[in-house]
């Protein structure tokens, strides 16, 4: 059962002012936190809440861990809902098929496919609700972006907002064009790096986007998928060693990949990173270009409740204040339809106001077929 709510997230000048004054609300004190945005923070920093809070335990995708450790977030949940969350980091596919659910009140994967997988295998599943959405994006450096603009593959929609014609980009890759072909000064063939699609959500979202694009932009079904699988396999077969977590691939990109690669990630990752490093806002935006594929796919972050306690979590996560914080500080767009985000709340030029062109992901059976095919590689 999905609840649709009409509304907008209003920019609160007070919230913004507070965020600016405290430097984004997190990550300014050098001795406090590991570098957020890496998605690999140790999850044993959970500390026991005061006595009258209800602790809810569950599996959570890695990219949401920073949010759950956010002090402001914890306070809202404790004060308003008398809840504390005890997360265990796990991959979406992992938690949906075979993870031990003893003592767990919910699972919180990063895509809808995992929900369907979970329901198939499990009687315990209660309600599910999409909490956040984050579109898939491509991170790269400005040198590469400029090269792609010259080729008419990337287009500037407005200041700071760039879209990439995903069909054209895919064609370049399939045709084995090199970086030098787009005016770059280093060796290698044009490639988009992604996480292992059989293990990690961002990789398998990307696989979904690729198959649809190879199918001339039409969502594939059980029949049409067969005609695009060979080319899809060929593409992924060219990727060599792949990271298993979107946090790792993003972190590696930031360290050594900003001028020599294109990587798949979530929009939320760059927002979270900039909010955590407010003094470096300009440096980051001067170094990293966010390309919105057109069309792109949503990564939907649904909670599946396993009992009453899980239901309470869903209720809390749909709170407007929580949703606003999740956007302002971690870049998660609302999962509730027709809510527009306020770019200015996060002070970023590189973020799109609306994601207009989205392709739905293939259905569960088709998706399983795709993953099986990719496992053969």
């Amino acid at each position: 059962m999905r609840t649709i709510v009409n509304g907008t997230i209003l920019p609160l000048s007070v919230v913004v002012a507070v965020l600016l004054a405290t430097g984004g609300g997190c990550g300014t004190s050098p001795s406090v936190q590991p570098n957020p945005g890496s998605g690999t923070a140790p999850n044993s920093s959970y500390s026991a809440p005061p006595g009258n809070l209800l602790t809810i335990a569950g599996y959570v995708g890695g990219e949401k861990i920073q949010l759950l450790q956010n002090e402001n977030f914890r306070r809202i949940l404790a004060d308003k809902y008398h809840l504390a969350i005890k997360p265990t980091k796990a991959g979406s596919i992992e938690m949906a098929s075979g993870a031990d659910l003893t003592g767990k009140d919910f699972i919180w994967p990063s895509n809808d496919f995992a929900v369907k997988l979970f329901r198939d295998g499990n009687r315990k599943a209660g309600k599910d609700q999409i909490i956040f959405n984050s579109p898939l994006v491509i991170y790269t450096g400005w040198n590469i972006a400029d090269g792609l603009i010259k080729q008419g593959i990337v287009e500037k929609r407005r200041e700071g907002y760039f879209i990439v014609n995903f069909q054209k980009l895919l064609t370049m890759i399939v045709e084995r064009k090199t970086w030098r072909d787009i005016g770059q000064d280093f060796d290698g063939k044009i490639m988009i790096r992604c996480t292992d699609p059989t293990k990690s959500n961002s990789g398998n979202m990307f696989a979904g986007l690729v198959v649809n694009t190879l199918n001339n932009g039409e969502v594939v079904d059980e029949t049409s998928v067969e005609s695009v699988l060979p080319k899809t396999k060929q593409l992924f077969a060219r990727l060599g060693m792949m990271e298993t977590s979107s946090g790792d691939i993003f972190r590696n990109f930031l360290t050594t990949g900003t001028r020599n690669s294109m990587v798949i990630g979530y929009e939320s990752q760059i927002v979270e990173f900039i909010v955590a490093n407010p003094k470096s806002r300009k440096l980051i935006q001067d170094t990293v270009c966010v390309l919105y594929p057109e069309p792109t796919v949503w990564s939907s972050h649904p909670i599946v409740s396993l009992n009453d306690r899980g239901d309470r979590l869903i209720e809390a996560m749909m709170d407007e204040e929580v949703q606003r914080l999740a956007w302002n500080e971690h870049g998660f767009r609302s999962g509730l339809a027709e809510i527009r985000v306020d770019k200015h709340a996060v002070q970023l030029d590189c973020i799109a106001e609306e994601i207009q062109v989205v392709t739905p992901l293939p259905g569960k059976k088709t998706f399983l077929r795709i993953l099986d095919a990719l496992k053969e590689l």
Partner: protein
Amino acid sequence: MIALRSLLLGTLGTALLLAVGCNGSSNSGGNAKSVSGGNALPTYSDKAFQIVSGSENEALKPILDRFAKERGVELRVQYKGSIDIMLDLEQGRNLPYDAVWPANSLWISLGDTEKVVKSQESIMHSPVVFGVKQSVAKRLGWIGKEVKIANILKAAQAGQFSFAMTSATQSNSGASAYLGFLHALAGSPDFLTSKNLADLQLQEKTKALLGRIDRSSGSSGWLKTHVVENYDKFQAMVNYESLIIEANKELTAQGKEPLIAIYPTDGLSISDSPLGYVDHGSQEKEKIFTDLVAYLKSELVRKEIIGLGRRAGLVGFDAKDADPAVFNPDWGIDVNRVIAPIPLPKEEVLREALNLYQAGGLRKPSATIFALDCSGSMEGKGITQLKEAMTLLLDPIKSKKILIQPSSRDIHIIVPFDATPREVIASKGNDPQMLKELLGKVQGLQAGGETNIYAAVIGGMEELKKAGPMDGYFPAVILMTDGRSDGSIESLREALQNQGYDIPIFSITFGDADERQLQDIARISGGKVFDGRKDMAKAFRDAKGYN
């Protein structure tokens, strides 16, 4: 309760700022004072925060010490090759360290099969380059030009170029360079596959290039020091850009010509220095880790790290941060160039490539004299450990596990001795039956008699002379003993002078070892002393990294 513990820790911390177990990578022939016992695994400590780090991080030690002092915590650092760190990680929950710091996150990915590394952060990065003597780079026409691996191979095949490089099965810089060679010489495929590795032409080309290596070691830091201290003997070395910078600071201070950094466009790799937290369940230690990461990435420390020639930044490396006195364009250091590393192959292929290097004999072969002390004092523990060490080499399953397999080209000369050499068993290759027979002989050795190390080593060297010139080999002596030898070092000194080529002597100590004689032997031969008492296997593998 917690407050009291912190106070105690603080007091202990300031009183005991130790950095024990330092694998003295500043050792070389000229300064063999400190013993390398460093490779043995320490025991887990509740109070001390123990880090195992790649050898290239030694220059950052003062920064770590300062953190330890300010934070009031005892910090211990042990230096090893990155591949050794990978092998350590495979121990899983039994790993006694609180943090690992290899040169490349690749080694955490490969080694951390039990997922004990809970989080990691890249502290800095440095590309692996060729550092070529300026006069040599000029002669070869490489200055200011785009150089590819094929160009380097051509010069190597024409006998115009030689270089020092660490072992690809012990050290990240060697492994990265080796993978770069393979990738480039295979024609830059999307990524290296088993099919590429099976191609004999690729194997021959790689062999030819690796055959021009004139010095090996298990440690990038040691290699840099050795090349600087023996600069006349070398033309070039493969190492991190940061260590080329360190070397050049020392060389130019001595009025010598610098090494010019050459970035082969089709064979590059970048080390990303990930500091990884190994969780033992202590919230206190986790806090120390996060504080240490924050400290290393803080603005002031970051600038300090950059001052040491490492690239560091929140995102990538801002060329504006590079001091041209450090990232010196006169040395070919290029912070504006886009460094595009080769795409890494799949894990199975990577492991296959390492085995091809070691067992498959792509590497330059070794000619090793194993001088085995079987005197009376070795009875019991000593000779048992000695036999265990040789088993690591001669048992195919054990040697593969720690990547020291013999190849078909390797020469082994085994010299069990007491007052005199008992026999000299010369062999070549890795035929399984032959290795089995050698192992049988070694396992049958009995302890008894007096000790004369010198006669045994000289005996082995005489035998090696029969194999002719050693241009295509890394000759070395691995001496396993508890020291206390009769005889005179003078006979050895003379023999070394008359051998016709350098033959470093690496001693592994056992039992009640007396190192003084062994240090002298290391000094006159350009070798090293390893303490085998705590962990003989590690000492043996470490010694093997040098040839």
